[in-house]
């Protein structure tokens, strides 16, 4: 907390220094308060080998694409505001912004599974179940995610293979492309669920360690 014992300032240099020091001290203290916090959990990755690199690169790609899509949404929404004052229509900006949000959501879904605990979940069970029981619960969670993804992958694949000649109304983007991104993203989520089962859940359930994340 800042000390309030400096001289009253009414334009004098020394007083200005006093105010600056006061606010600076407050900011330093705030920074110290801000940086206190629990350590981050490790990401879900294979312990070693080429698969570790593959999943790490996939994680980075998902983050980069998700961030770029967010930038694109911002630019397109601002463009929509600007275009309102110009002649002509640009309905495609709104359409592309909406689709970008759909793509960003699906592309980040794998990241949410791999870099826990990003998904919103009730973790009350963690206070009740311990050891193997908790490992069993986590195994069950990954099986549910995997099973759900497999059904949705089937649906997405059907969408991609049937919407051959369809295009979006405003931007005339191929619906195959539009639907292909969620398909790829769901495959990545399923891959993360399999990874979780193999490298974390089964070893933990058997009592032989595993990635604690």
């Amino acid at each position, binding site marked *: 907390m800042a000390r309030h014992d400096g001289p009253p300032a009414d334009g004098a240099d020394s007083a200005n220094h006093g105010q600056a020091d006061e606010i600076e001290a407050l900011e330093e203290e705030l920074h110290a308060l801000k940086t206190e916090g629990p350590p981050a959990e490790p990401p879900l990755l294979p312990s070693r080998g080429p698969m570790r690199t593959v999943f790490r690169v996939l994680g980075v790609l998902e983050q980069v694409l*998700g961030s770029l899509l967010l930038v694109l949404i911002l630019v397109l929404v601002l463009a929509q505001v600007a275009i309102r004052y110009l002649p002509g229509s640009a309905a495609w900006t709104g359409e592309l912004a909406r689709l970008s949000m759909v793509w960003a959501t699906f592309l980040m879904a794998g990241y949410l599974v791999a870099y826990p605990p990003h998904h919103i*979940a009730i973790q009350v069970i963690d206070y009740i179940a311990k050891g193997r029981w908790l490992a069993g619960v986590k195994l069950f*969670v990954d099986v549910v995610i995997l099973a*759900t993804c497999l059904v949705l992958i089937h649906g997405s694949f059907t969408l991609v293979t049937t919407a051959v000649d369809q295009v979006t109304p405003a931007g005339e983007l191929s619906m195959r492309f539009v639907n292909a991104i969620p398909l790829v993203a769901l495959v990545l989520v399923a891959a993360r669920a399999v990874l979780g089962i193999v490298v974390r859940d089964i070893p933990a359930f058997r009592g032989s360690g595993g990635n604690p994340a």
Partner: protein
Amino acid sequence: MSLALLIIAIILLFLLRVPMAFAILGPSVVYFLVEGYTTHLAIRLVMQGIDSWPLLAVPLFILVGIVATRTEIADRLYDAAVLFLGPLRAGLAYVNIAVSLGFSWMSGASLADAAGLGAIEVNHMRKKGYPAEFSVGLSASSALISPIMPPSIPAVVFASVAAVSTGALFAAAVIPAFLMTFALVVLVWIWARRRPDLVGEPYNRSAVRRAAVRALPPMGAPVIILGGILGGFFTPTEAAGVGALYMLLLALSYRTLKPRDIAMIFRDTAVITAQIMLIIGASALLSWILAREQVPQRVAESLVGLTENPFIFLLIVNVMLIFLGMLLEPTSALIIVTPILLPVAITFGVDPLQLGSIIIFNLMIGLMTPPMGGVVFVLSSVTEIPLERVFKGAAIYLPAMIIVLLLITYVPALTLWLPQLIGL
């Protein structure tokens, strides 16, 4: 597949720590398979749930909130509040409320407030001798101002589902949000009377003036966002975009943002957007199933059969929503209950704007109650105060929240006066 089985499966999966989106999606896709619907209809409904122009405001408001907390902007607000309110007895408690109020004009999510400001507020208060439960409970309650005061992400979601004007719903929420702030201030004032030891530090008028000037540019964001929407210059989505641009430019002008920080801001916005949007997509699928099973009609018949008194109807709605808010994540609960309750509420003469405020307020209370209590989990994580102590702290402020809820439930003018006044 029976509807009861579907609901039980979803609740069981919630309790077994399955991510909210998958806890809804899993049983819903099983329903699709059992009932003979195609899987591509399921994924299309999920995508359609996310593919919405009004909902585009959600990532942009999240961006505004993240820029505010990750840069000097939040610090400037905090500095000003500490120097201005710190001298009062229990001043840091008032600072906690004031900063949340200021932040609520830029951010629409309680979790962003709790995560961004919670650690600063609670650690600062504890270091100055405030009890941990009182401090963390106050942060939990004040964090709920953000999703109620416009711009509010739950309001964007409700408006999108209920097909009402987002601007009008924003206006409807202003008085309830101020009432909530006032209730917290009164509670702190009563508490502070028994704590003469928590004396404030003396005023330094010039430091206060300087900090107030430094806090002025950040307060331009709410002027752009709320002024833009309520003045009819922008749609809420456009206002969110312009507000996000303003905040980014402001943060850049302070020269404290490095390129890596900007990348992290967009990355974290994408993460939170995906968390929320996946739940919205999953809930859209569940809503479709509920509509197909004629749940809204059945609930309407049951409620009308139960009572014809709007007073009792609203009481039932509140009890039901508080219970739902305790179990469900607010976004999914909003998408599921809005289509069910809206037609019934209209038959009882309840205005959709008032219903929206009631639903949002109820579900936000669920963020500070067990077992879901999202704000409590975040605060426990960032302050390292055990969960049960955070819940205990939040319980101190629950009666005040309930009183405000009852006021907005039974005094329609509190939500309807302002939208009518500005012609929305």
